[in-house]
């Protein structure tokens, strides 16, 4: 497994997630009480024995940089290889912008890095997927198939059709057609995870960059699919894609389902995240809690129902929180009442305030707000 190199694309903020991505990319949105979304894919890589991972940065990557640090929390702080931050220098220079137009352009910007990697194979993935994946099996399947590219896909549609890539499978078991950016879904949807050899990847980049082609799905899979054998590798376990505020809310609430938790949090394939020094969570004498997912370091003295509390959240006496997601270090003062609220990091809700959203339109409090 030493022979597979990980590349993660951290996408630009999505308009549908505006409030949560003002200061960060999707990859660094807090999720599930203590994680950032990138933790899932990064842990999947590490659990498969991948030792070297390059993270292609987009604009607003400061929060991601803070989160990843030296990579130590994922055991990726190495002298050789390990976690490498790849900032968007190339585009910043060329076009005065820190955004790339597509994966192939982004890869073109780190061509020298790719040339120097120690492994023969590369796995490309986005960072907006919440799933616990058997990457080692995918790699084995790729090697066995002998195909040029292995595309990990699912039978259960999970993305909005306009941003997803779909495959038709031919009689030979290989991908026979590719649909992308349409409004119709096929039942075989790409998880946007691809395995191919380093040498093929380099030649694809060469071709794309010199022909001003930028997208992996449109320009490589669709555009060059006739000359490439694409092997579909199916994963039909739990997977969620975070593409809008409502999806973020509803996918978070799914964590109350024990089967979802069992599928995401497997002792043999742990999801690692940045460590903090938080002690255990303290429940005070008047705490009333029902259906809650609570991280370490909270002090809960009020009422919590059907909610997700991140690390270091404080719920003071008499406060009541229902159907909420409160991110790290949020503080809810005495007698405040919150319903269907997503509070970003370090929000303070003062005594006696009452804030209500609806499940179909949760109220979002921006990072650091004091209400």
């Amino acid at each position, binding site marked *: 497994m030493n022979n597979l190199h990980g590349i993660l694309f951290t996408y630009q903020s999505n308009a549908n997630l505006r409030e949560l991505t003002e200061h960060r990319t999707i990859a660094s949105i807090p999720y599930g009480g203590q994680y950032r979304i990138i933790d899932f894919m990064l842990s999947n890589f590490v659990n498969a024995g991948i030792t070297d991972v390059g993270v292609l940065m987009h604009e607003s990557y400061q929060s991601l940089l803070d989160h990843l640090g030296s990579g130590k929390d994922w055991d990726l702080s190495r002298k050789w290889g390990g976690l490498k931050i790849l900032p968007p220098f190339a585009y910043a220079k060329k076009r005065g912008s820190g955004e790339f137009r597509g994966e192939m352009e982004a890869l073109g910007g780190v061509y020298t890095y790719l040339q120097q990697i120690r492994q023969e194979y590369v796995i490309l993935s986005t960072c907006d997927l919440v799933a616990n994946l058997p990457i080692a099996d995918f790699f084995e399947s790729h090697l066995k198939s002998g195909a040029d590219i292995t595309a990990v896909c699912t039978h259960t549609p999970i993305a909005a059709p306009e941003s997803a890539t779909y495959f038709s499978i031919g009689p030979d078991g290989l991908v026979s057609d590719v649909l992308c950016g349409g409004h119709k879904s096929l039942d075989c949807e790409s998880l946007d995870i691809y395995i191919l050899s380093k040498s093929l990847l380099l030649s694809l980049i060469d071709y794309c960059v010199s022909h001003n082609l930028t997208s992996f799905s449109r320009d490589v899979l669709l555009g060059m699919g006739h000359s490439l054998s694409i092997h579909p590798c199916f994963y039909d376990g739990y997977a969620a894609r975070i593409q809008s505020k409502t999806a973020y809310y509803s996918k978070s609430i799914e964590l109350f389902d024990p089967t979802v938790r069992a599928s995401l949090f497997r002792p043999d394939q742990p999801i*690692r995240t940045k*460590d903090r020094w938080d002690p255990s*969570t*303290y429940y005070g004498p008047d705490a009333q809690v*029902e259906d809650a*997912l609570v991280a370490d370091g909270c002090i809960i003295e009020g009422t919590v129902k059907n909610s997700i509390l991140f690390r270091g959240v404080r719920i003071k006496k008499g406060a009541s929180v229902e159907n909420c997601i409160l991110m790290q270090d949020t503080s809810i003062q005495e007698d405040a009442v919150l319903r269907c609220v997503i509070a970003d990091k370090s929000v303070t809700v003062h005594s006696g305030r009452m804030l209500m959203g609806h499940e179909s339109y949760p109220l979002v409090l921006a990072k650091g707000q004091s209400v």
Partner: protein
Amino acid sequence: MKKECIAMLLAGGQGSRLYALTSKVAKPAVPFGGKYRIIDFPLSNCVNSGIDTVGVLTQYQPLELSNYIGIGQPWDLDRTVGGVHILPPYVKEGSKGTWYKGTANAIYQNMGFISLYDPDYVLILSGDHIYKMDYSALLARHKQAGAACTISVLEVPMEEASRFGIMNVNEDDIVYEFEEKPKQPKSNLASMGIYIFTWSKLREYLIADEENPASSNDFGGDVIPAMLNAGEIMAAYRFSGYWKDVGTIVSFWDANMDILSVHSGVQLYDKSWPIYCRTPTLPPHVIGQTGTLSHSLVSGGCEVCGKVENSVLFHSVSVGEGAKIRYSILMPGTVVEKDAIVEYAILAENTHIGQGARVGAAPCNVPPEDWGVAVLGSGVCIADHQVVPPKAMLESTEEEGHI
């Protein structure tokens, strides 16, 4: 590479007064306070005090402790020079190795390790106290007093002083006499078992002590008195704050309960002096619809569907519907099935309490002479509806696999 001050942590104690809790692990590795092990307190104190080189002297069940410490990442002690090192008594060339004879002998046997860092000062710590302390203030006091040895002391109530090693000091807080558990204590300054020595002096006394066949090779019993007799300057450093010896079942249970009364125990939520620890990678804990909690600590990976009061739940504990946990300490991996009742008990790692079983009892419900905290050793399984009386001390009889 020279270091000004290094710490030597005496973690060799078997902690036999913790009975079932230490039958499989060394005392410093006993879980404490929801997330920690006892050794996390002195280790974190070192790091927070700017001491980045720590030798951990261990002999009893070293594998578990050694595996817990690893290369020291959780404490930021994975250093290029220095860091944390486990020092078991090893077998030297041509000789049969032996366990450390006493605390002083343990340091003596590791003088080679100490010399690697050529320190000016050596801090001697033990692995059985819960406290937060800035050792750099202790070091400053040592330097200011120009002492050969500085001892950290705590003012204890005069009536309890005869239970401690008492330091009698002059007006400058310089020790002129040391009395071990005096019947008529002259002062209430109790030694906390935390010493800082000027290394060149300590080295000299350790060598002399080793050559003395009459010595029990102990700091308190031999080295400190020898230094005092020889007229070395010995300073006292007054510590104030929470400090608790967790050497007995009752004091261990107390210290855990202290944390629950937020203002009395060691202040875990104080960010200015964090206590670090190694925890497995676990998701947040979950409180089910039927779970109720009050005055309790709950950690990562727990699933609580029962009633938990005045208790400490370590990681990965599961409490079934209808189960009741009161005034108890549940160590990692404990499973309490439906409708079981656990009161005034300490359940070590991976114990399993069957449906409707009952462990321990509240003091009001039993005659005082029969009451005590019930303790289940690691891996103990209690069958459905079985009753474990208060004060019980059960160990797993299951034979462990060969090695």
